[in-house]
């Protein structure tokens, strides 16, 4: 599989009134052909800047961004515009032209590419069909709901037959149900059209639902990158842990008590560990919180347990879980 994007040591520094602000610090990563690649981070972490370096809406301060082995910063204005036909983008705010009909909006990229009128109308209608909005072709965007507007934006993005689709917080302005529908649509497009998709988001749920790999951006740094299931089951960086494991709201009920976190993946989620523990060791634990979620069809769970006060008991319990193949970490 070849790489769609290759970022090497990318830095981005803004200068504002003499003050410098570094939005990206030494970011290197690859986006592979055909995958859905997630970039997640808190707001202000630099992920929007990062995605804008991929189509050179933002110039990098140093480092290189390659699109199919072509260094974007080496391109002249005309060549860059040519390349941008292959890199579509959708936005949080949809960014449709409100004074133009839905069909005219979808036609835009084709018009820019110089496709004849008749052909581009036909193509635009096909695109609207893909996103399920054929009957809205002659309506103005103001008459559409947020979810429909994003569908139009997706149709517009697909019209020029791009190689990759960049999504900048594309579902952040939508409610959870509509978000789900838009993500399903993106997944479908990814599979049917073999379209590489890069998704910027601050929502873990988005990554869980459709991404193959994920990069975690924290304060301009690339904290971690890997397959979604690996990052979920065994996050390495502090930023990843913070995103994957919500903060534990509980303190141990006695000073000598200990709070641990268990993480299990699909292979162990069918085993009744807690019941086994009680049966085999006679020791009791207190479940503070627990949840399971499906990541790419595999169940991932985590549980926060409070252990009894005695250090010996604590060790016995931790050993029991570790032997069972669960990952155990202390919560502080």
């Amino acid at each position, binding site marked *: 599989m070849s790489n769609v994007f290759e970022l090497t040591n990318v830095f981005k520094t803004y200068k504002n009134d003499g003050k410098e602000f570094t939005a990206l610090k030494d970011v290197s990563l690859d986006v592979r052909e055909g995958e859905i690649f997630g970039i997640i981070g808190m707001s202000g972490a630099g992920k929007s800047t990062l995605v804008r370096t991929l189509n050179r*809406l933002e110039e990098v301060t140093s480092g290189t961004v390659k699109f199919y082995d072509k260094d974007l910063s080496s391109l002249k204005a005309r060549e860059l515009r040519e*390349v*941008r*036909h292959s890199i*579509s983008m959708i936005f949080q*705010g949809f960014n449709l032209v409100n*004074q*133009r009909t839905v069909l005219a909006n979808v036609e835009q990229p084709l018009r*820019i590419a110089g496709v004849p009128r008749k052909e581009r109308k036909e193509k635009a209608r096909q695109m609207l069909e893909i996103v399920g909005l054929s009957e809205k072709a002659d309506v103005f965007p103001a008459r559409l709901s947020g979810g429909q507007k994003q569908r139009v934006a997706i149709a517009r993005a697909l019209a*020029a037959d791009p190689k990759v689709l960049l999504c900048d917080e594309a579902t952040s302005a939508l409610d959870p149900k509509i978000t789900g529908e838009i993500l399903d649509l993106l997944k479908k497009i990814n599979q049917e059209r073999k379209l590489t998709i890069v998704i910027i988001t601050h929502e873990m749920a988005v990554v869980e639902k459709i991404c193959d790999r994920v990069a975690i951006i924290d304060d301009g740094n690339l904290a971690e990158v890997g397959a979604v299931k690996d990052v979920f089951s065994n996050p390495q960086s502090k930023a990843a842990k913070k995103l994957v494991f919500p903060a534990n709201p509980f303190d141990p009920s006695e000073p000598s008590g200990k709070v641990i976190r268990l993480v299990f993946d699909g292979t162990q989620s069918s085993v009744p560990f807690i019941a086994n523990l009680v049966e085999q060791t006679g020791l009791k634990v207190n479940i503070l919180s627990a949840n399971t979620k499906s990541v790419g069809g595999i169940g991932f769970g985590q549980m926060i347990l409070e252990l009894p006060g005695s250090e010996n008991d604590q060790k016995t319990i931790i050993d029991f879980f570790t032997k069972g193949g669960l990952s155990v970490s202390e919560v502080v």
Partner: protein
Amino acid sequence: MSDYIREAIFSGIFETLEMTFFASLFSYIVGLPLGVLLYATSKGRLLENKGINGVIGFIVNVTRSLPFLILLVLLIPFTRFVVGTSIGTVASIVPLTVGAIPIVARMVESSLNEVNPGIIEAATSMGASPVYTIIHFIIPEATPSLLQGGAINVATVLGYSAMAGVIGGGGLGAIALQYGYYRYQKDVLWTTVALLVIMVMLIQEIGIRMSKKTRKT
């Protein structure tokens, strides 16, 4: 009111409309591109260019801050050069146009500034050139606001056209001045004032309706 004055007022209406129409038209022919240029070359915009923006901005600011009456006088030689005379309806169109250009330019600039920057980003990400983006994204999106500004501009030109009477221009302004002011004919004065008010209101109304009709949001 004598028949003679009634006739003068009647033809004054047409002269005023003639001056307003042509001065507005010509001021938009020059002012619209100028406004687009002011917008596009300003900081952070598609064709950011400090030099061009500074020069145009300076000229616009200077001409805009001149009181129109002074501009009228200053432009007499220029008017004579363009139309051969500095008196009459046609001659007034020249200073009216010159006076309206900077106002149009600033109005256009501010209408374009209202366009959501996200749309420009979307256009750029599609591979649109700056000029294409301006013509096919920014101006269409700003059309309702441009029309609204247009109504204000035309009404301003109409107001200015009345002033042209001072230096021998035609129209209702000249009648108001000659009969109403110099000859103390209050009825003529009030008639012309009423007519001017009605005309401004009509222009405003037409502008607002056109703007509403085009606004799809």
